[in-house]
């Protein structure tokens, strides 16, 4: 008996995995992939599934590999940049293969909305010889997840389920097989010793032909699957995958007779046979896809191989944008460009808006910012003060390296405290490199607690080993905040809510050989400035662990207000802190504190006239 449920794409994937009999689920949080593992964890107890937030994506994949070697069905979840971290084991794993099943959910982020790259996991699949499925809706995500497990088990290869933000974070009505997830019945035979599990140059040489042959077999299989379908019989062909296929469907509404649309759900290995029969019926081909010209390259290759007289219109000849997120309007504009080039009279039309974008009045810039009361603001402000004093006392400048997390927002005006940011854990190592080339400048590296465990530790060890004179500032708010507050190794709680040993960051740093290690609470700005300055003046690697609370998961009992009698209207609090709770009403000179105040008291500590006071206890 099937049932319709409103599911987010990531939830649909979790339910699909449970239905497929997944036994072990690992991952590292990353937008837009996070909710998949969270959903599995919610049902883990009922269904008998093991789930964990691992310390990083490489560890997550390797853990899942161990489970799959033993015959279990495993799922690993991550965002696209997480795949870069996991790519080392994955590239080798393709030669070894798996028993049981191993599916990787990798969420791409065209735009990007919440990522540092616009990379395309379909291209990664091509590079690594890993099959890639590319759903367009939560319903397809649910179905393709189950297919991914079947394929992985049958062909003994890892399979990537690749989504984009508009699939993972879209909600839709999904027809699921059962009203609620049932206990997983699959059993796991356990690990059997065999030389196939130990990679070695000779084994790789033996396995490589097998791996290439699997690609051929999969391409054959994919050509017969209903997820790759042709509709229409117009003279202009369109090929699309993922959400782009839905944009196409909506864009060509009313002009369907002009086009034949080939929609691909299993993108790699390219379903050549199905594509060939589609291409044979057309002379002009439009390729609609976000990110890399993956389908375009596959089509070009196939057309060349089969000597077909088909002209292609895509990214490579400038008809479609090479970057950014697509939508129906982008697709309409681009297809119209092609129609015009082809000398066609028809044009797809846009809807008439209430107003065009160009007619809007100037609007306030509303950049994302640290929450009201965020401990990171106190730490950034403290280092700003400490660096000012250092410069005054010794003429030494400071470079601040940032990292990935909420605290990347320390780059925003007016804090301006992030001079570099690259990828998870990079801040500490970059600071080391900056020290080699800017020895007269003080190097400070900020890193969050979860990021520290993810990939910060090797960089700390490197700084100590090679003697990089850097100051490490760990922003320990006791959660993985940016992705929605997942636990991490420093908390003492696992993804399943079980207690575990909480790993103390200061002890780790000390055991790496850092001689100056201090821990300070972020309640007192003065205390933070003092310790920051002391750490910056220390010769050799130094570290401070700043401990505070994430306002996203803690309740504050108080809030602050500005006494309009004593406020001089200097605006210092507004200009220095950028706290979203403090604002200056238009035309006024005295700021106000809004309801979102969570009572950190940083503003009261910086107010030159002592006009900000704790006011009342929150309801």
């Amino acid at each position, binding site marked *: 008996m099937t049932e319709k449920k*409103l599911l987010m794409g990531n939830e649909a994937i979790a339910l699909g995995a449970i239905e497929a009999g997944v036994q072990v689920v690992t991952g590292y949080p990353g937008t837009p992939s996070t909710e998949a593992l969270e959903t599995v964890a919610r049902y883990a107890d009922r269904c008998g599934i093991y789930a964990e937030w691992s310390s990083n994506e490489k560890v997550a994949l390797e853990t899942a590999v161990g489970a799959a070697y033993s015959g279990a069905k495993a799922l690993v979840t991550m965002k696209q940049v997480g795949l870069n971290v996991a790519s080392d084991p994955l590239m080798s794993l393709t030669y070894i293969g798996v028993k049981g099943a191993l599916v990787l959910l990798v969420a791409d982020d065209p735009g990007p909305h919440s990522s540092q790259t616009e990379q395309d996991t379909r291209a990664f699949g091509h590079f690594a010889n890993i099959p890639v499925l590319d759903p367009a809706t939560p319903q397809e995500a649910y179905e393709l997840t189950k297919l991914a497990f079947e394929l992985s088990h049958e062909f003994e290869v890892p399979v990537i389920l690749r989504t984009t933000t508009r699939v993972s974070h879209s909600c839709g009505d999904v027809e699921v097989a059962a009203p609620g997830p049932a206990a997983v019945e699959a059993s796991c035979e356990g690990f059997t010793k065999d030389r196939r599990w130990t990679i070695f140059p000779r084994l790789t040489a033996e396995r490589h032909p097998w791996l290439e042959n699997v690609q051929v077999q999969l391409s054959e299989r994919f050509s017969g699957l209903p997820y790759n379908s042709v509709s229409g019989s117009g003279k202009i062909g369109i090929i699309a995958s993922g959400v782009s296929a839905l944009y196409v469907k909506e864009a060509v509404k009313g002009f369907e007779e002009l086009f034949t649309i080939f929609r691909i759900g299993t993108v790699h290995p390219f379903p050549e046979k199905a594509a060939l029969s589609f291409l044979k019926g057309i002379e002009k081909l439009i390729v609609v896809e976000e990110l890399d010209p993956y389908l375009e390259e596959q089509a070009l290759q196939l057309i060349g191989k089969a000597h077909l007289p088909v002209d292609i219109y895509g990214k490579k000849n400038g008809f479609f944008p090479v970057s950014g997120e697509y939508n129906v309007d982008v697709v309409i504009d681009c297809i119209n460009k092609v129609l015009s080039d082809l000398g066609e009279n028809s044009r797809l039309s846009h809807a008439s808006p209430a107003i065009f974008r160009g007619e809007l009045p100037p609007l306030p810039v509303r950049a994302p910012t640290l929450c009201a009361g965020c401990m990171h603001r106190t730490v950034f402000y403290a280092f700003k003060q400490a660096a000012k004093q250092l410069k005054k006392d010794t003429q030494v400048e400071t470079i601040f390296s940032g990292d990935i997390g909420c605290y990347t927002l320390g780059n925003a005006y007016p804090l301006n405290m992030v001079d570099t940011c690259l990828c998870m854990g990079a801040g500490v190592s970059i600071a080391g490199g900056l020290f080699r080339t800017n020895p007269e400048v003080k190097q400070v590296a900020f890193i969050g607690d979860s990021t520290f465990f993810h990939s910060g530790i090797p960089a700390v060890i490197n700084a100590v080993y090679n003697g990089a004179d850097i100051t490490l500032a760990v922003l320990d708010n006791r959660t993985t905040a940016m992705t929605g507050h997942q636990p991490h190794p420093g908390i003492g709680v696992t993804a399943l809510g079980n207690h575990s040993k909480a790993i103390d960051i200061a002890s780790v740093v000390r055991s790496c050989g850092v001689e100056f290690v201090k821990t300070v609470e972020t309640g007192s700005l003065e205390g933070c400035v003092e310790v920051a300055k002391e750490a910056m003046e220390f010769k050799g690697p130094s570290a401070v662990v700043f401990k505070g609370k994430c306002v996203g998961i803690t309740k504050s009992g108080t809030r602050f207000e500005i006494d309009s009698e004593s406020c001089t209207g200097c605006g210092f609090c507004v200009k220095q802190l950028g706290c979203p709770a403090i604002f200056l009403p238009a035309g006024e000179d005295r700021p106000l504190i809004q309801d979102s105040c969570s009572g950190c008291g940083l503003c009261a500590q910086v107010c030159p006239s002592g006009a900000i006071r704790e006011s009342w206890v929150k309801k």
Partner: protein
Amino acid sequence: MKYDILIAGVGGQGVVLASRMLALAAMKAGFCVSTAETIGMSQREGSVSSHIRIGDEISGSLIPAGQADLLIGLEPAETVRNLPFLKKGGKIIVNSHSIPPASKPPGSPEYDPAALLSFLKAHAPGLLCLDFTQLAEDAGTYRAANVAMLGAAAGTGMLPFSKEIILAVLKTEIPEKHRAVNRTAFEGAVEKIKLISGHLNGEQKVNSNV
């Protein structure tokens, strides 16, 4: 039948919850639905929006420009920002309570909510503008402004389903300890708009039989 709703606001205002409630209500009413939400970095006080597409068939989750039938704006500037998504003659419900940006980087435009509200009124005749934050605060918490706005939308017949359906969703979606205050905010908005001139009724009704 096709009915596209866009909810716009600032991170933390409850755009995602409002969107989920509408989507669940649409499903209860027997429609297909898809939504696209802003999740992630922008939730930290940034501009957020949610696209809710209701109809007889599944489409991509993003509403094309000029196709939204209804724009629910939890904040004046965010409502104006998303106006290009509204179709000509589409309906607007806007919360007059403004949220100034956290910081004003040099060169960024001055925020004048009153001017933006007049702009909206000039470009969308018949828009429904109220201080829903105040209305929610009177009901018990300013945080329920999102649910109050759903009450206004349902009360004026701007949605392709009844207010009873949303109330049923409210029961299952909002945790018990917040339920009463949200219900009060919802009903408060329904009552409030009854007092506003009658022109909202009738002509703005959605014909759900389309």
